[in-house]
């Protein structure tokens, strides 16, 4: 392929040739001749190879001879296919030259735009000898959750003067998943009012039949004698009984707003980023407590993960959160209508939304409250993100902030535990604030 430089020189040569004939100027014609010879020589012997190449997925790399008839092939291996935000992936790219000629290759392994090369380089200029191979190693830092794909590998061969080149994309792709990072939570202050009881369940900080000590209280008629704390009786002279923590599990429902508006703000600081991180942290906490956790994300459609327990459920939830895309504008009311028949009455519901651009929020949350659900809303403030990024001026910010405060007060009036989650606030602090601690 002609480069712009060679095209320019070629055009110049033609122009000079014609002009030379017109002006009867042999210097001009001579220059044109020299340029043409220069170009021809570079084209014929400059080593601009036809990079007939093929690529294969890394899993196909089992040591067998390459399928490619070609000259250059690429294979890639990743250190891990699943990582958390701010994690690193080491990439090994294997480049092979099957031809009898050495080549000067420009190799660029395409890395998603949001990622940063931490060590090594994904853009290499190298001389690859005949029938030789080389390994290119680099590490990428992955600051944002999502499904990502590395590749294709762009290869370019050109002559020393950069006059002619051949480019080819080797379609070698490796997919990997970046989970939202999680915050360690000590307590969430969220418990079910209608816990389910079963053997081996965990305590939920409510008095009831269980094994863990909860508190002392005075004896009432009907209490079991076995519950009497005789030491306390000896100390106080009153009959005191031990109360135990109730062993139970809760159904926790996490609702994450992934509408287009949830991505308002900078790429790394917006409501969706905060919501997914919070949902991941909460899921980890509740599942660690052996609660049953379900997840609903809504954007252009309502996607739900059925309630379940265990590590596998955490993986399923993290995968869904990693893939949550900001798009669509499904109102919360649609979500409420859809899930209401399927969730246990009184289950804690945690909504993560910036509460913007949805006129059904109040009625939707009112529906939850009317059925006595324990509703907690953590609302990452898009206004703060926008204001910090200097996209909103002071007046606009104040007006919108007032509107938001009015909405939050209204929701609080419905009995919703709500917190205006500011960007620098830790999740645990926001939760404690929402629950009135």
């Amino acid at each position, binding site marked *: 392929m002609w480069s712009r430089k060679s095209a320019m020189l070629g055009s110049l040569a033609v122009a000079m040739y014609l002009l030379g004939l017109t002006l009867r100027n042999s210097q001009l014609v001579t220059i044109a001749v020299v340029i*043409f010879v220069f170009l021809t020589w570079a084209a014929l012997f400059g080593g601009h190879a036809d990079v007939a190449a093929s690529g294969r997925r890394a899993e196909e790399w089992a040591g067998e001879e390459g399928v490619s008839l070609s000259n250059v092939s690429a294979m890639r291996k990743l250190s891990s296919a699943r990582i958390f935000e701010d994690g690193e992936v080491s990439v090994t790219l294997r480049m092979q030259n099957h031809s009898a000629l050495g080549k000067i290759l420009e190799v660029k392994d395409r890395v998603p735009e949001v990622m*940063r090369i931490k060590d090594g380089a994904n853009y290499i200029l190298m001389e690859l000898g005949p029938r030789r191979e080389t390994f290119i190693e680099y590490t990428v830092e992955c600051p944002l959750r999502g499904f990502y794909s590395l590749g294709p590998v762009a290869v370019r061969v050109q002559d020393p003067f950069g006059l002619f080149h051949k480019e080819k994309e080797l379609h070698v792709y490796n997919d990997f998943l970046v989970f939202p990072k999680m915050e360690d939570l000590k307590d969430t202050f969220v418990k079910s009012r209608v816990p389910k009881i079963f053997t081996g369940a965990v305590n939920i900080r409510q008095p009831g039949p269980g094994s863990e000590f909860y508190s002392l209280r005075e004896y009432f008629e009907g209490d079991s004698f076995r519950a009497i704390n005789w030491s306390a009786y000896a100390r106080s002279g009153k009959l005191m009984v031990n109360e135990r923590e109730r062993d139970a599990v809760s159904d926790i429902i996490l609702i994450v707003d992934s509408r287009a508006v949830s991505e308002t703000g900078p790429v790394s600081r917006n409501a969706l980023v905060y919501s997914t991180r919070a949902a991941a942290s909460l899921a980890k906490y509740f599942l660690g407590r052996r609660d049953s956790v379900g997840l609903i994300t809504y954007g252009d459609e309502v996607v739900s993960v059925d309630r379940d327990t265990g590590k596998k459920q955490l993986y399923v939830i993290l995968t869904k959160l990693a893939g949550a895309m900001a798009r669509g504008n499904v109102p919360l009311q649609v979500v409420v209508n859809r899930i209401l028949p399927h969730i246990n009455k009184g289950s804690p519901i945690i909504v993560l939304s910036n509460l913007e651009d949805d006129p059904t929020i109040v009625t939707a949350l009112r529906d939850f409250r009317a059925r006595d659900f324990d509703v907690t809303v953590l609302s990452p403030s898009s206004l703060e993100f926008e204001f910090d990024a200097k996209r909103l001026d002071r007046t606009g910010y104040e007006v919108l902030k007032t509107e938001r405060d009015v909405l939050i007060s209204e929701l609080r009036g419905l009995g919703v535990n709500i917190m205006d989650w500011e960007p620098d606030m830790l999740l645990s602090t926001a939760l404690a604030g929402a629950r009135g601690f």
Partner: protein
Amino acid sequence: MATKSGDTAHLYDGKTVRSSAPSRKKLAGQASATGEIPKDAIPTVEIPTFIESLLGGPLVPKMKFLPADKMVQNLQLGCYGVLIALGILTYIVTPAVGTLWFALTGSMAIANVLQLMVVAGAIGTGFWGTMTRDARFMLASYILFILSVMRFASSKVSLSQDLFGFGDSQFLLTILVVIYAVLLVMYFELSNGVLRFSMLDTSIRTREVYVMNVKKIIGKYHRSLVINPLIAGTLAMIVLSVNTILPAFVSLFSEQMALRMEESVELISVYGVALGTLFVFIVVGGLFALDLPTHLQSWRENKE
């Protein structure tokens, strides 16, 4: 060494910021004092400048060069040398007669001064462009060099200064013109090389690109800098000697015809040169039409 932090905002410094959601963008636009959509709400697209695209385009889209390394300095020195030689030769092989300024002014003295100024301007801008590694000045220099050679020459190669008596020999004149043309092309290539290798060097030092086996890559470029002009010059000489070669070939069949050709005004004029060039054009065009470069390459690659 980068520290680990929960806040990843620093990773986006200087990077493209995604546009905000339409509702907010609209809102932000309405809320600002000026009523404009904030600049960072609009994705940035970097398009190479006209000059960049003419010069082959940079390896890394937009960057300031770091101080020149040894390789670039050597290229700059080479470029200065070629520039001086080219300046002198340009002045010698392009007398003011037949130039545009001579036609406009009708005065030989003024035309001489103007021609000298054009050549000096070409050298000056070339020097400055090479030193500062600014493609705009280089382009100006190229244009001035080409402008200086554009003159009505009546098919004759005449010299403004002939201290060594080159004008007496057609062969020496041809050599002089070929050297001039080769130097001009070398100047194009060397000045372009200064930019290309500055970009490459900067990319290497900013870790944008990693180069394996730098010496081999540079060595290949150096070899090409010597071999290509030699070949170009030799082939150009052959083409330009068509008025000698053609009669010699014809003399195998007819001595008289060969003699007539040797004395032919057309063949020793620019049209003779054009005829030789036409052969080259046809051959080159044929080679490309047959996709010979690719076939040749394939053959070379596949041979055991």
